[in-house]
């Protein structure tokens, strides 16, 4: 990797992180705003609007999945970390390689499942939120798992490179 590659890579990484942060901020603020507005309307304005409940529920799914994508960036998922503290670093590197590969593959399969699910809903043509095709809202599932698969594939590639380098040496 040349230095300019590295800076490009770092810039991409910063850009991705910025997009995630912006998306999470917008979603969370919208969630807080809409949930509060709903309470206000229910108590003082006679009922609120019909689809705000549904929109809130979908936004929880979205914010959760993008939170999960953000967790993947720093490999910060809930895990039982039992062995890595005991095993020597040499073994740990191999283990991480396997784990990142498996994670990327499983996320890939989940992406594929998500696409099939969305395609099915699309063919069925059901709508939500006052006429919006429901599959548009569900697209977040394959998108998020796709991003996570990509993220762990990158981790895998990085580990593989550093392993290869240490073996060559």
């Amino acid at each position, binding site marked *: 990797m040349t230095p300019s590659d590295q800076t490009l890579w770092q810039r991409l990484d910063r850009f991705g992180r910025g997009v*995630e*942060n*912006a998306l*999470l*901020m917008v979603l*969370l603020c919208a*969630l*807080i705003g809409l*949930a*509060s507005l*709903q*309470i206000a309307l229910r108590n003082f304005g006679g009922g609120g609007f019909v689809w705000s*409940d549904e929109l*809130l*529920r*979908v936004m*929880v*799914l979205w*914010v*959760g*999945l*993008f*939170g*999960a*994508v*953000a*967790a993947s960036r*720093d*490999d*910060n*998922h*809930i*895990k*039982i*970390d*039992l*062995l*890595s*503290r005991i095993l020597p670093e040499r073994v740990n590197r191999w*283990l*991480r390689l*396997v*784990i990142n590969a*498996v*994670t990327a593959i*499983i*996320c890939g*399969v*989940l992406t*594929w*499942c*998500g696409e*099939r*699910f*969305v395609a*099915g809903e699309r063919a069925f043509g059901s709508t939500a939120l006052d006429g919006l095709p429901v599959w548009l*809202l*569900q697209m977040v*599932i*394959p998108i998020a798992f796709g991003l996570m698969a990509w993220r762990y594939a990158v981790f895998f590639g990085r580990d593989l490179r550093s392993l290869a380098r240490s073996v060559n040496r």
Partner: protein
Amino acid sequence: MILIGLALVLLAIAGAPLFVVIAASALWGFQQAGVDLSVVSIEFYRIAEMPVLLAIPLFTFAGYLLSESSAPSRLVRVTRALIGWLPGGLAVVALAACALFTAFTGASGVTIIALGALLFPALREDGYEESFSLGLVTTSGSLGLLFAPSLPLILYAIVAEQSNAGAAVSIDRLFRAGLLPGLLMVLLLAGYSLWRNRTRRVPLATMSWREVRGALWEAKWELPLPLVILGGIYGGIFAVSEAAAVTALYVLVVEMAVLREIPLSRLPAIMRQSMVLVGGILLILGLSLASTNYLIDAGVPAHLFALVKAHVTSQLTFLILLNLFLLVLGALLDIFSALVLVVPLILPVAAGFEVDPLHLGIIFLANMQLGYLTPPVGLNLFIASYRFERPITQIVRATVPFFLILLVSVLIITYCPQLSLLLAGEPGGGGGR
């Protein structure tokens, strides 16, 4: 089949993200049963069909924001002004403040970071032994789990409702069920703290009305929060998600616009941090909906019940085994994963032994609270070791007496169902929503 199971367990303890292990087991199970794999996504989408889940991102964000502000130090000052003049008062202050803070911030370890960092030096300054202070602060980090509106309570109610094993568990009944058991834990720990420091002869601080007034005034913006939220929830005025929305909006406005303790530039990072935790929880919840669905289709809970029933005859033996099992579980799994993975399986079994699902929830969470303090993966131990820069072994030794006290309270909670059920009220009654 056994080979695949073994490989998955190995992956899990080797440190693979838990959601991967859960997803893999669900995918593999449905594949074996010849079911179209898109079912995993269909189950996952049920996340968007549970209105209560809204409470999780909102409370988590409010908790993270509170712990970044100076609210923890104001909370300590108020509690100290009110009960600090008692003998052993500061220890009791620590317990009370931590319990309240944990109830509001979930159980993610922020209590030790936000409050423990204030209380530990204060305790040392007041002449409490290092080992006692360390143990107290580490233990308090997960105290308050049983008080509304803690996330694990909400999550238990959600999971119990989803697995529809007989009686419904309403969130507001569960909140009331947690009150007495939670108080029992606080009282036993407070009693121990007083007894342990009975020979300490330091001049007691005097109760000063001036200090009380000053502390209350300083905390005037945060004070309404517990009053309104706890009153609203326990009084059945708010639904949980409404309480969460009010809390999040109020905390955001007060900390960012009124008190301005957190620079606006910090906000994206705080939001990101809190949503990373939410994402982790929802991911595991969504995928375990799929894996649980497979297990129920395959009749695993029924088999499990038959298996247990063949060896265990009385409710008492069942409860003893349950405690042992949950102790081990709590030592290995974090509270959220344990909830979504194990509750659907043990709910029907417990129902077969006529254990009330509310009581089961309180037993489960009380046991998991012990899990925060047990090696190898006790979260509080690691956070305390990191925060106070002490070796893990020292922290473990310091927490042993507190752990034993909590163990006693877990046993009382388990074998006195009345403690949990007394305030819960009749199903459907009690004025909640």
